[in-house]
């Protein structure tokens, strides 16, 4: 478990860039956080570090956004899925390819389909200080 606090969007970008440079192709990560927590900001910073120069827009309506960078980035928002069967119907598992990076919002909708070494990124905002606390861990890590 790694815990990092950021105090501005720039610091969130720096953290995301650091991870983007560390994490290998094939990484699948699940982003957790409330509306406005900074999930979009994190993914934008991550994409920038992969050399993607087009904006990472919300995939709420299309569910999946695909971007070409140093590594291909798949950005998924599973909020609208009813459950794992539908995720399978969508061909979700095809996105966990060894050559790209996959970032998933509302990953719990695809429970049972996700890789064992899923990387979790939990974001909590302190309402008063606006400090974001990132908890980064893999399934199976000792908390």
């Amino acid at each position, binding site marked *: 478990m790694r815990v990092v606090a950021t105090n501005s969007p720039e610091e969130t970008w720096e953290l995301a860039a650091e991870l983007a440079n560390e994490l290998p192709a094939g990484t699948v990560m699940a982003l957790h956080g409330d509306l406005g927590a900074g999930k979009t900001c994190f993914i934008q910073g991550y994409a920038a570090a992969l050399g993607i120069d087009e904006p990472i827009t*919300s995939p709420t*309506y299309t*569910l999946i956004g695909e971007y070409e960078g140093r590594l291909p980035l798949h950005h998924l928002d599973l909020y609208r899925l009813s459950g794992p069967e539908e995720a399978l119907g969508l061909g979700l598992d095809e996105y966990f390819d060894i050559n790209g990076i996959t970032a998933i919002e509302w990953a719990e909708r695809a429970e049972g389909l996700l890789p064992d070494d899923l990387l979790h990124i939990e974001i909590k905002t302190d309402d008063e200080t606006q400090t974001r606390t990132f908890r980064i861990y893999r399934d199976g890590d000792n908390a």
Partner: protein
Amino acid sequence: MKILGLESSCDETAAAVVEDGRVVLSNAIYSQIAKHRPYGGVVPEIASRNHVAKLPGIIDEALEAAGETYDSIDAIAVTYGPGLASSLLIGFSAAKTLAQRLNKPLIGVNHHEGHLHSVFMKEDAPTEDEVFPMLGLMVSGGDSSLIMMRGVGQYEILGSTIDDAAGEALDKGASVLKLGYPGGPIIQKTAEGGDPQAVRFPRGLESVDRGKWIYKYDRNLCFSFSGLKTSLLTHVKNLDHEPEGQELSDIAASYQEAVADALTMRVERALDQFDIKSFSCAGGVSLNKVLREKLTALSEKTGVPLLLCPPSLCTDNAAMIAGAAYEKVRLNKATEEPNDVNPNLRLENWQ
């Protein structure tokens, strides 16, 4: 030339017959909004199941209303992206099958091209040669961008949202205010009689040098609606009570004002920056009254003519798909039949 168009990229099941790209002979739409309303947004599985159930009847309806038959139409057009994969596939499979069975050409159309073409689909619309170079504002639930069109099928994206689309901002705003779904029409209704200056919501990307800019687009021509939604959430939280009555109308009016203002502001900058003969606005959000008023005022101020999409063609429909397909045929650009859908299809220049 009469083209039968099919559209199923999201939650509207649609078929239409259009003659020579402009004359809408029929425009049949089955809107699934009621089916998705309980969930506050489009549920992909419900959407694709309803496309399967409704598309055959909608095609019949479109042909009948146009006074046409499968034999009398000249070609089939279909949306092949962008959109929900599971939804796109339904219309695409139907179109592919029809084209093969009827031995007629199949023309694949980018959903966004359909929206951009829709402003030409009315009686008094100027010819395309009169309006280029044209600046297009595309505003829908899934996309918000500024596109420079130097000719038919020639696109250059000048700017886009860097997070949420305008329609999504309206949906999320309506959800925060507990108004229901879809957000656009219900925010507009709630805003009636409200003071649009009551709350000053952010227009996105306002500060001059916050953070670095890494995108290929001009920052001044991009949109950001993510902060707007957060700002509404914070405003409502700080009230310590559920807004209602006049207060609710004021908030809705201010929120809608922020969305329309943010869009119009970037259009104005682009009109300043480029040599543009006309500008247009299409997509579901182009139905918004305040946005229409602001763009019309901008057209009057600058003297640059504005083309607005006819209200019946603003939200997703198949007439715009058949219309854009005709342009491809007319310019001899419909040479390759599409073989698959592409949920992430980008706007590309016609080759």
